[in-house]
């Protein structure tokens, strides 16, 4: 069993915040921020500092998912062990597509998203981890109070921030299941544990969501208001399926090359290149595809 201090640090590592904080906070605080300096910031300042950090976390996680959906010659595809020579979902702008749609347009109720995110954050903290101290990198040497402050700031954001983006709970969900299927994903090249997984482990992680694995349901149920608890399992199945479908739709669609001002394309979308769609580049108002009528029959009747 990990010590409370270690498990608390572990939870931050699990969702990527500790790694992100290590990497990104120095830009604000200076590279040698001490525990005291962190503590003196107070909750409000930490919340402000963490918002962009969490945005980076979401982007890194969804990069990992888009590469899983449609691999290409990018770092995330290489890390999962399936690099491809031709452009993939990341080159197609799939990550921006997912973030934009999740954060700006998905009408998902806060009443589920916020407690689900909070449940993931707090439960991650409580899970015992076979962690060695070295897994945390020894870069940030936090006092318990400091780690607690970071945790509280994350919780504050996911529970109270009126503009909390939906990409964050989705990222938390993916990172949680990543660490369940492979605890070694706590350490690696990216901020996000999910992005560190092999392709096969990403599939195992998605299976946890899509099959509404009972432990995951129970975890989220613990925070969701009672009348909504029966909805969690089904919503997880829905989210699992929708992630696959929406990522592929975005990666193969034209959104990256679409100029809404002119309602025209600025270039050939990656998905069109990959599939050979409209090879002459014209979007087209017709095709010379008429072969006639089957058996030359142009009308049928019951008479």
């Amino acid at each position, binding site marked *: 069993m990990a010590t409370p201090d270690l498990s608390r640090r572990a939870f931050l590592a699990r969702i990527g915040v500790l790694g992100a904080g290590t990497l990104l906070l120095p830009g604000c605080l200076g590279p040698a921020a001490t525990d005291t300096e962190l503590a003196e910031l107070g909750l409000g300042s930490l919340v402000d500092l963490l918002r962009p950090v969490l945005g980076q976390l979401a982007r890194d996680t969804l990069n990992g998912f888009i590469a*899983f*959906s*449609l*691999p290409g010659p990018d770092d995330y595809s290489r890390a999962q062990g*399936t690099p*491809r020579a*031709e452009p*993939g979902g990341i080159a197609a702008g799939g990550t921006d*597509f997912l973030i934009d*749609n999740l954060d700006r*347009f*998905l*009408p998902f*109720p806060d009443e589920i998203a916020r407690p689900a995110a909070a449940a993931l954050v707090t439960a991650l903290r409580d899970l015992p981890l076979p962690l060695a101290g070295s897994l945390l990198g020894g870069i940030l040497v936090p006092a318990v109070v400091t780690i607690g402050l970071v945790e509280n700031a994350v919780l504050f954001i996911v529970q109270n921030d009126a503009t909390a983006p939906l990409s964050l709970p989705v990222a938390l969900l993916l990172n949680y299941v990543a660490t369940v299927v492979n605890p070694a994903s706590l350490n690696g090249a990216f901020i996000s544990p999910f992005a560190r997984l092999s392709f*096969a482990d990403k*599939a195992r992680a*998605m*299976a946890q969501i899509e*099959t509404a694995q009972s432990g995951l349901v129970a975890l989220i149920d613990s925070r969701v208001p009672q009348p*909504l608890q029966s*909805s969690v399992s*089904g*919503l997880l*199945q*829905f989210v*699992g*399926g929708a992630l*696959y479908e929406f990522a*592929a*739709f*975005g*990666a*193969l*669609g*034209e*959104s990256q090359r679409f100029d809404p001002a002119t*309602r025209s394309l600025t270039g050939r979308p990656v*998905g069109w290149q*990959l*599939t*050979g*769609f409209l090879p002459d580049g*014209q*979007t*087209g*108002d*017709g*095709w*010379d*595809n*008429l*072969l006639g*009528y*089957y058996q030359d*029959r*142009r*009308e*049928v*009747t*019951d008479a």
Partner: protein
Amino acid sequence: MRDAIVIGAGGGGPVVAKELAARGLSVLLLEAGARHADPRGEWTHFENDANNPLTGFLRFGPADRTKPAWFRELPQNSFLFQVSGVGGTTQHYFGNCPRAYPGVFAGYDGPDAGAYDTAHRFPLRYADLVPYYEWVEATLPVQTAAMGRKERTFFDGCEAIGLPVQTTKTTLGDSFRPQQNAILQPGGSAGLTRDVTRLAFPQATGCTLCGYCLQGCMEPIRAPRNLFAKRSTDNSYVPMALTADAWSPGGVPVTLISDAFATRILTQTVGGQLVATGVTWRTGATGALHTETAQVVVMAGGTTESPRLWLNSGLPNPNDWVGRGYTDHYFDLMVGLFDKTTDSSRGAASAARAEFPGRGGMENIGLGPALQAFAMQLSDSGARGFYTNGRGFTGAWDGPSGRPIGPELKDALQNGIDRLLNILVITDDDVEAQNRVALSALPADEHGPVPKVIFRPRNRTARTLANREFLVGKAAAILRGAGATKVFRLDWAPLILHVQSTMRMGMSADDSVLDDTAEARWVKRLFIADNSALANALGGPNPTLTSQALATRTAETIFRRYFGGEPWVGRETPVVSTDDRVTQAVIARGL
């Protein structure tokens, strides 16, 4: 006070509105979404711009695209493919207009009578509906579809397995055929050229085979709205409704209000009987509420929205069948890869089909790359080669059922969007009380509690499950017969697109909401004219034509029962929606 208020300008509402307006009644037609009065100015052919369920112009959401789409709770892996805006889901439909199989109607005594959903037959005979089919088929009009390369490929497969050709409107046995489509067939240079300078009306008429049925039809370029090729109601019944005075003696143009979401049916008790008296709706742009009264109210907001509006209005539900019995044809998708050109993304999206009465049917469907990828990720069988989600069926296809992911998906797509063939498997599924629309416990939106659409795909009747397995085997054989080198079975999670029977008319008062005239059993002067009124899943044929035939019959019932009029179907000759009087009025009024 209006004579009639029709809620919803989708596949069915404009039919009732047009028919009653032609008889001289004052009709108000409400549409929750956008008007889309200028497709060339508002639409594109791009898949994300059109079909993104959150942001596309053919989403289910407010007219103002900067506002989020409307939320529906889906407590399972599934996708609910609703569309708001004038035309409703016919804006993105493929125009397929098969008639229902005769075996789903009362009085059917063919040798296969026991093969259908016998517990939930229509409370009328097939022969009773035929005159209304003929009326709608003439009005839209419905025509035999032309053939492109993907249809030729589908027919090759059907010929290879020895299926006979159907040459009648009525399906009499296992067979294949070109679709009967509500699409004006190619004329002039249409279908013969890629040159945009030769694709404008009137040099080109009818379908130009552009391949964008799913993105809404605005072809040929510069054609009057009622002469756009696809006969979605925004191009057919709505223009007729808005110009009723121009083509029908004594006709009165319908008043159409878009961005108007109905939130309540008003009622009062008259002589001990509950009677519909009007409608309250909310204007999306302002949030203002409006109420109008009417002699008759017609609900036509769709199979998910009609039960929601009923329940939110506090209307009676004594047998608890409001919202129940949802049928969706329990679709599956088979994708065949070829080493030859199929032109899958070109031409009318679906112009070929096969029929298996008592089982269901199937049709080819052409998609662009984004929707093709979407379609190949929707699955209840997990990820091929990694996890099966408790399924992963094997059969006449390659490998286990399920979605190809990552490298396998990419390989399949890189084989070429025009070197594949999709077959949509359309199951004759049973009416089941468990599949339903209820009100969600999640927070209400500005229109009241939101619908929760519940399906139990793994717990459907043995007949439904067996029908689906039979059809996927046939589809695989057709793809192999056509020369497919690899066949995927996706085992789709519910794609709730063909939607029927949540407010069903029925033989028994114990399991239906409507009587045999589509009037509500417990609220007089309240009718339903969308797919929710259908008694069952029709045996598998696409539902829009039958819904429109039934809506025509419902309009006649309203006119006779509450306005003392005479019936017209079978007595008069229908005016086709491409009639020059309609065209001239559309041009003159800038419609």
